[in-house]
């Protein structure tokens, strides 16, 4: 049998049963590689269930720094779940390894000649070592990590360091965990020739980057962005956004004098109330937000229309998951693009921003509060399950201490004294953005009534057609202003004036470097642009105009971003080709490059001589 030979370039899959505590051990594995300086991208593939169902944890290890999911099987599978064993054995690439618990003999029908089976009597050892059934269960996970340390030649001290970090404050647990690691290590060395043909070695490819999930970064962004009011209702995969906001507020936002909170979080009765709370806070001058996913967005749409029309600043973080309806609640997608862009009845249009990394989750979450208050409208941050719930390698978080929040056009009591006239919906500056006042500012001036019904420039209710139209036109103007204010698209570093362009956004970015490399290997040079916001700015329009053919890559069935581009920029649909991936797993470079090659309108240049390493 030919073994796969590889250093720092492989995928390992852990197949477990959910509710058995495997996640923390698997995370420890990923983190150990990260601490060894090797780029990793861990992905938890979990069911919508609490206990007893198969769950997988894939770690892509890539010295080259490719962070997207890789298509196909894994070089190594750790198969700890009898339920999914058949598929898990199949998942191993020829020449790869299947590590399993041999306490129970493996079904001979499962055996494959082209891979190596590494059986260790893990349950047996646990039964002998531990009496407590919970410990027997938990330490199984630590033991296979210890075994991997030997098999892959991992830095054992790094693992030990991780254990002592994990149990800081519960020092009693350190020794037994290290012991379990050592047990696994010894079992592997005494049963097999270690290391295998696949190994890891220390590297310098991580740099100052950190390993953090997008939801934590969003929660932190809201803390740094000065958000004080949050309303929410639990829903996967967005739940941990507000949980993290609250966690960090409890650490960083307690008034030292009184011990009381400089923030308020309310778990609401549903998503209608969650966004209602955020809108009430925004109306009253506090930076306010809510976070939700799929079904929650649907429930929020009436209120989003109110906030659009009544011009209330509010931030909504939408951690997208696979729809429609309950869909696949624990799988990822980018399928709320259209429902958010045009959320609510009537001629509504909403501002969206698209982060692609935890670093951007942090920055854009903080920025979203500036945009909301500047534009006096909802800002929808469009993240997704893959970004939100998995750890990603990302630039370290930083904050410019000289930064002041942009609180937008708000008149205080003194300014109200000075202005000649105040009209809540008067476009004084020609940018479509009127001035507002907070309730309670001045006894006589700047007082108005906020409503979702039409009104004139002075906030007086009106049903006159011309007043209504004037207001709707001003809102359009405001939207145009938004396009200039929002983050501009990012051009791919390798752009060299190709006739074919690729547009992508959000987590699709993770697969794109690899995609461009794969295409280059086949002789195709393409230009890339990552869209970061809606409404689209001029740069997006220019990019499409400059190219003869434009692929739009996204993670939904209907090509929602493509539709939005065609509709908003009046593009000939024949020019834009959709590349859509929507099975609930993150999109991959091989999927994208194959789809592009199949449809591309240019011929490949002669193959490059140099092969990529």
């Amino acid at each position: 049998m030919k073994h796969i030979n590889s250093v720092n370039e492989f995928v390992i899959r852990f197949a477990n049963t959910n509710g058995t505590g495997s996640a923390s051990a698997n995370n420890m594995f990923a983190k150990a590689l990260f601490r060894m300086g090797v780029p990793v991208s861990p992905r938890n593939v979990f069911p919508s269930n609490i206990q007893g169902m198969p769950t997988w944890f894939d770690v892509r290890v890539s010295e080259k720094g490719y962070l997207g999911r890789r298509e196909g099987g894994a070089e190594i599978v750790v198969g700890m779940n009898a339920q999914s064993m058949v598929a898990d054995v199949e998942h191993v690439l020829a020449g790869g390894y299947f590590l399993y618990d041999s306490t129970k003999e493996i079904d001979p029908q499962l055996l494959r000649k082209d891979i190596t089976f590494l059986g260790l009597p893990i349950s047996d050892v646990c039964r002998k070592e531990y009496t407590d059934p919970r410990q027997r269960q938990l330490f199984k996970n630590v033991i296979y990590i210890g075994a991997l340390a030997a098999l892959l030649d991992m830095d054992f001290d790094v693992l030990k360091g991780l254990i002592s970090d994990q149990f800081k404050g519960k020092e009693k647990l350190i020794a037994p965990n290290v012991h379990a690691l050592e047990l696994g290590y010894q079992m592997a060395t005494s049963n097999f020739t270690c290391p295998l043909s696949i190994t890891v070695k220390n590297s310098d490819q991580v740099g100052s980057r950190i390993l953090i999930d997008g939801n934590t970064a969003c929660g932190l962004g809201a803390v740094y962005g000065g958000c004080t009011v949050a309303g929410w209702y639990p829903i996967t995969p967005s739940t941990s956004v507000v949980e993290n906001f609250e966690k960090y507020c409890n650490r960083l936002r307690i008034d030292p004098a009184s011990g009381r909170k400089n923030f308020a979080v309310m778990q609401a009765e549903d998503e209608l109330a969650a966004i209602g709370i955020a809108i009430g806070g925004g109306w009253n001058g506090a930076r306010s937000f809510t976070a939700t996913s799929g079904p929650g967005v649907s429930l929020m749409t009436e209120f989003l229309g109110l906030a659009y029309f009544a011009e209330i600043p509010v931030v909504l973080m939408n951690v997208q998951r696979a729809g429609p309806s309950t869909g696949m609640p624990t799988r990822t997608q980018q399928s709320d693009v259209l429902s958010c862009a045009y959320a609510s009845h009537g001629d509504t249009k909403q501002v969206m921003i698209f982060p692609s990394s935890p670093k951007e989750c942090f920055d854009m979450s903080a920025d979203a509060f500036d945009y909301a208050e500047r534009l006096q409208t909802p800002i929808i941050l469009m993240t997704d399950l893959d970004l939100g719930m998995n750890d990603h390698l990302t630039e370290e978080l930083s904050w410019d201490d000289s930064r002041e929040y942009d609180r937008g056009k708000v008149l205080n009591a003194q300014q109200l004294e000075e202005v000649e006239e105040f009209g809540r919906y008067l476009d004084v500056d020609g940018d479509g953005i009127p001035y507002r006042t907070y309730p309670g500012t001045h006894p006589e001036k700047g007082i108005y009534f906020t409503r979702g019904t039409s009104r004139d420039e002075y906030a007086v209710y009106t049903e006159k057609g011309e007043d209504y139209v004037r207001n709707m036109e001003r809102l359009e103007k405001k939207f145009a202003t938004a396009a200039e204010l929002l983050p501009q698209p990012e051009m791919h570093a390798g752009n060299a004036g190709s006739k074919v362009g690729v547009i992508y956004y959000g987590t699709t970015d993770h697969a794109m470097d690899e995609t461009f490399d794969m295409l280059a290997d086949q002789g195709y040079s393409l230009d890339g642009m990552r869209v970061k916001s809606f409404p689209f700015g001029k740069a997006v329009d220019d990019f499409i105009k400059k190219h003869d053919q434009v692929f739009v890559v996204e993670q939904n069935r209907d090509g929602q971003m493509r539709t939005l581009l065609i509709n908003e920029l009046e593009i000939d649909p024949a020019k834009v080709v959709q590349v859509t991936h929507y099975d609930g797993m993150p999109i991959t470079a091989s999927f994208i490059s194959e789809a592009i090659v199949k449809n591309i309108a240019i011929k490949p240049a002669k193959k490059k001589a140099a092969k990529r390493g």
Partner: protein
Amino acid sequence: MSYLKSKFHHPNLARNELGLTYRDYEGSLSTLCAGCGHDAVGAALVQACFELSIEPHKVAKLSGIGCSSKAPTYFLGKSHGFNTVHGRMPSVATGASMANRSLKYIGMSGDGDTASIGMGQFAHVVRRRLNMTYVVANNGVYGLTKGQTAATADKGSKTKKGEEIMWGAIDLPTMALQLGATFVARSFSGDKEQLVPLLKAAICHEGFAFIDIMSPCVTFNNHATSTRSYDYVREHVEEGNITDFVPSQEEITTSYPEGESKDICLHDGSILRLHKGINGFDPQDRFAAINAIEQHRAKGEILTGLLYCDPTLRDMHDFLGTTDTPLNSLDEKTLCPGNHALDGINNSFR
């Protein structure tokens, strides 16, 4: 349409402690039907706020959708107001209060807005004990959509078209009591004597104050077979505890025979003085209040007056532990932990 009222003030108009007249508390001219109960509710609110010498701009008015929810435009014209969406005023009020706990919040809703589409939000705003005055102008009917029955309409009574109402009525004060409101009252828009002191007490109460006000709809529910018409309500009202409101600064002058009155001291030092009517019960006993409501209902009577008040219980902000400073006034210096805090945070992700 909204009409501007004449700004003319009669020079001899009474002024309150702030030097303001009643007119300073009015809103724009009402567009509700002449004789609509909701206008009387608005007028009572104007009088209550005037007499309490509340700074109008320190009040925020919130409502849902409906004729009753339109009413806030017609009172307290110097207060900010927010006409939200149908049935969802409680959540917006919650967020507003979270943002700035220093304002007074007055919510105005209808029976459709609260007892149907907004039932969920109503239940939960009561549970959270939001510090606000929540008024339901209860007319047993949907006014704005032209006469459909509301969930508070009595079973067996007839609609204007003569159809018998099949479904059991929801009693909002009972619900409010069960869910933990700390001030619950019922009144009648046609009885200012009773309504104004109750509103004043509700506004001074720190916690969730709920008032269910029978507020007849002259256009769709004032017929002879309705149980929400002016005539029917007038005839079937049974006044429970009669209430005087004594503001904190005022000396108590009227006296009542021993044992026939009871004082409840509110947070701001003002006093709710109760005289036990014939049907008096202890309004600090939640069970007694629920009992009394049910007993009167069984007899076909509408029990009004103060039903329950406990000024000692905590409100939402006490539970949340929010700082006293309005959150909307905090700036980056207080709110942003700064770059140095990120060092530790970054390291925790290594």
